């Protein structure tokens, strides 16, 4: 074959596309995901990398002066600052109170509201409505209801002879109050997830078990609960992460008080960064919070998976 003939044989036809089908599809795929990817890089990955650097600086937001201090911020938080561990303790108490209560209530409501009956949509709406209510408005209303003697909650308790505490002024009661009011606000979301999961369970399983003489409790424990496991895992993870990130609720209801009794990690980070303008230290605390939440999530997923095996 002569050289000319070879060139003619390998030449691209005039009307052929510039890229092969494989590369064209790849390009299209990148173009489709590029808006999200660009957003991810700018608004998530970029700040995430930046915060690693910030956490190793002493940076005053107001003066804009930053000095590299290595791991000093982490050392101070973990080994010097007594407030840090108090704040972590508060966050853990908040999570330990909120997560089981939220999940138990969400599951109970979902079991009650997953089957159709007259008015079921109304009840689902009632329990879901707080989720879409403004967090600040919600906190303000509860702050009003939870006043000392004049509060509506204590007045109702007084009708049945109970002398209610000054909910938001006593550290232990304040923590209980913010947990319960947060659960009431957010339980609707988990309820909807559980309802969706319950409705996805084939009726046949339950009917077969019933024909075999299984009780309602046995059906729940042996069939429904295991089949809900993936949903339960998701709910547990997102509720735990959410409980560590809680800020607006605390900000409005207690401001971290009384006696720092509700000063949780997210609020403490805000305080350091935006009240004291110490962005470097706040970034270090945010990194620590990130690690805590990541470790908890990995532990939850691992334990749950082992349980399912």
């Amino acid at each position: 074959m002569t050289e000319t003939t070879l060139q003619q044989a390998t030449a691209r036809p005039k009307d052929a596309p510039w890229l092969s089908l494989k590369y064209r599809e790849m390009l299209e795929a990148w173009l489709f995901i590029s808006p999200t990817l660009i957003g991810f890089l700018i608004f998530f990955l970029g700040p995430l990398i930046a915060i690693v650097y910030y956490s190793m600086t002493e940076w005053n937001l107001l003066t804009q002066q930053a000095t590299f201090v290595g791991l000093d911020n982490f050392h101070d938080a973990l080994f010097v600052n007594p407030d840090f561990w108090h704040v972590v303790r508060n966050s853990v108490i908040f999570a330990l109170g909120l997560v089981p209560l939220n999940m138990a209530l969400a599951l109970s409501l979902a079991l009650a509201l997953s089957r159709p009956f007259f008015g079921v949509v109304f009840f689902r709406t009632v329990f879901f409505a707080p989720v879409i209510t403004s967090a600040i408005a919600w906190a303000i209303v509860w702050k009003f209801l939870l006043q000392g003697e004049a509060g509506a909650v204590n007045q109702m308790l007084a009708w049945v002879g109970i002398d209610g505490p000054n909910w938001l002024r006593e550290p232990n009661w304040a923590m209980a109050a913010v947990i319960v009011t947060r659960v009431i606000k957010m339980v609707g979301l988990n309820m909807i997830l559980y309802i969706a999961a319950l409705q996805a369970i084939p009726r046949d399983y339950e009917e077969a078990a019933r024909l075999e003489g299984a009780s309602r409790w046995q059906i729940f424990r042996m069939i429904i609960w295991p089949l809900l496991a993936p949903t339960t895992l998701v709910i547990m993870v997102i509720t735990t992460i959410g409980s560590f990130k809680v800020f607006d609720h605390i900000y409005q209801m207690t401001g971290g008080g009384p006696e720092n009794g509700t000063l949780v990690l997210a609020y403490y980070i805000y305080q350091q960064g935006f009240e004291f303008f110490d962005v470097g230290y706040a970034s270090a605390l945010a990194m620590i919070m990130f690690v805590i939440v990541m470790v908890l999530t990995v532990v939850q997923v691992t334990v749950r998976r082992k349980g399912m095996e």
Partner: protein
Amino acid sequence: MKAARTYLTASALAIGLMSTSALAEELRFTVWSGNEAHLKMLNGIAESFKATHPDVTVKFETIPPADYTQKLTFQIAGGNPPDLGWMMEDAAPTFAKAAVLMDIGPSVKAAEGYDFGDLSQAAMGLWQDGDKVYGIPFSTSPFMIYYNKAMFDKAGLDDPLALAAKGEWNMDKFQEVAKKLTEANPGKWGFEFKDGEGYASRVMHALMPPIRAYGGDAWANGECGLDKPEAIAAVTQLHDMVFKDKSIVPPGEQGDYFSGNSAMTINQISRASKMPEAGFAWGIAPLPAGPGGESPVIGQAAIVVFDQGKQKDLAAEFVAHMTNKENVATMAQFFPPARKSVLETDTFINSNKLIPADQMKNLSAAISAGKVLPSHEKSPQIFAAMAPRIDGLWKADANVEDSLKAVCAAIEPLL
């Protein structure tokens, strides 16, 4: 020919527009008031600036007070500071220390007809550092007692204004009448701390009037004063009023004065605008005196220019305009002035339609004799360190002295 004429006209128009935009300047001014009357007055002052600066417009930008300092900080940190703005007394030292405020002294002193010496030196104290001037106070507002005349009448008591006129308005009398008012008005209280926030964001507003009346202070010269006998005596009296007499709205309760649920409160003249809606007869009186004599407490705010601003010299000129005698007299209806010449005139005494002249005279006297609330370059950290210890103080079984010592132990390293 026609095309050439069109081209020339378009060019002339473009050059004209470009030159106009080059000359026109806008100053961005942050304030925390969204009150229509305040903004109307401020816009009027901005309009009068056009007499000497016809191409300058001033845009007032309202940031809610609760977020004011933080949002201002974000704007500065983000490289987009306003040209000038209002600043509260507790934020002033932090911002001055951070070198983000312009020294406006040379500009205002050089402004034509500007009488710098007329500004009360007591009022300027917080805003000067040697020869440097970081702000000109536009509001030097003393704390006054607001009282509900109807509730005093119901209890058959002389009101605070009458007691002050007789020289009997002191801390003991304050406690006595607060208790009697509570007894005479079941379900209501004798006294409410400022805006009902005395146990939270307005701790200093709650504690400072009695502490100063007893001759004490929160801190001075790097030393905490809250564990001194004067402060302990003052706070013990307040504590007794809350938990023994039950005459002050307690922590966790709401007893809004402006809704008629408390007979007295402490507040500033700007709150008088809420009184027409309150629907009861009222008045203002001086703070009760104490063993330390009469010790008016002043909340203050100033106009500052931000050093990073692109038009800071022009902004400083506007400060001089805004705080000249004429404009200070205009602002006096809402914001008590720091200018002695305005303070001592009938114009100021008669400036507020809601407050009678005799009560305004008390206000004027309080401005002259008063002392600004304590502030510090580490105010945010100090208040955060105080908060949990102060929470411990406001319990029925708290030991006041121990609680105040704990406050001092917490804040002393920061002072």
